[in-house]
C-alpha cells in the first residue's frame, strides 16, 4: 500500500476478487507500460478483479467491458485507488 496525495493506492496484485478501483498509476519498464496501455489499462479506467489463480498468478480482470488475464509482474505495476 502506498499513499500519495492523501489517497490510498493499492497494487492490482493486492486486490481480492470482487474488489476494484480506478487506475491511477502504471510503473515498470516502458515496454510493459506500453503493452498495458495498449490493452486498455489507461489512467482513470475502472478495473475489477474477477478471480485469482492459486498463488495469485495469473489474475483475471474486468476492464472496459472485457475480461483480461494478467501475470503477477504485470499486476504489481498497476496502481488503483479504491
Amino acid at each position: 500500500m502506498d499513499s500519495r496525495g492523501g489517497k490510498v493506492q493499492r497494487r492490482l496484485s493486492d486486490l481480492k476478487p470482487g474488489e476494484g478501483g480506478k487506475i491511477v498509476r502504471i510503473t515498470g519498464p516502458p515496454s510493459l507500460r506500453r503493452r498495458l496501455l495498449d490493452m486498455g489499462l489507461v489512467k482513470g479506467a475502472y478495473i475489477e478483479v474477477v478471480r485469482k489463480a492459486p498463488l495469485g498468478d495469473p489474475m483475471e480482470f474486468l476492464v472496459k467491458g472485457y475480461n483480461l488475464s494478467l501475470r503477477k509482474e504485470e499486476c504489481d505495476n498497476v496502481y488503483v485507488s479504491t
Partner: protein
Amino acid sequence: MAIRVALIGNPNVGKSLIFNNLTGGKAHVGNWPGKTVERKEGRCVYEGVEMEIIDLPGVYSLTANSIDELIARDYIVEEKPDVVVDIVDASNLERNLYLTLQLIELEANLVVALNKMDIARDMGYEIDVKALSEILGLPVVPTVATTKQGMDELKKAIIKAAQQRGRRRIRRISYGKDLEAIISTIEGILKKDRVLSSRYPTRWLAIKVLEGDEEVLRRIDRSPVKAELMEVLG
C-alpha cells in the same frame, strides 16, 4: 490483377471467421519467413473481381514490442496491400478503435468491418454506423461473421476502396499544439531522406521517433538526416 487484401484486428474479434467466409475456407497455410507465426492466405472472387486475402496476426496495437505486432505492421508498411480490412468488435468499440487509429496513422487504405453486431445489440448498444464512418473518415460495414451477414457488403466496400486507393483523404489525428509543432519539425527533416520518405509515411515515422520505437530508430540510424534529427531530439 487481383486486389491484395490484408485482414487485421484485435484477438477474438472473429477475424478467422471472416477470413473463412471470404475465402470459402480454402486457405494456404504456412509460416511467416523465419518465424513461427502462422500465415494464412486465400482467394475470393466477387462479381468477377479477384481478391487475394491474407490474414494478419491478431494484435491490440502496432508497436515493435511483440513479434505478432511487428509482422502485422511490417506487412502493411512494406508490402503495402491495396486494402486493409480492420475487423472491429462492435461489442467492445473503445478498446478496438485504438488499433483503428494506429492504422489510420499508418496511412493504410482502410475498410472497417464492424463485427459482432448481434452481440452489441444484445448488450443494448446502438451504434450509429454512419456517424462512426464520418468521424473516422472511413467506410464502415456492419457484419455478423457467425451468420455471414454483411459479407457481400464487405466485398463491395473492399473493391470500392481498392479503386479509390491513393485518392482518399486521410484523417489526421491531432496531438495538440505542442506535440504537433515537434512532429512537423521532425517530419520536415525526415522528408529530406528520399529513400525513407518514399517507403514510409513521414508523419507516422515522426510519431514513432518521438515514441522511441526501436524498429523505426534502427531504420533512421542509417539515414543521412540522422545527425540533424538528433540535434532536434537532443
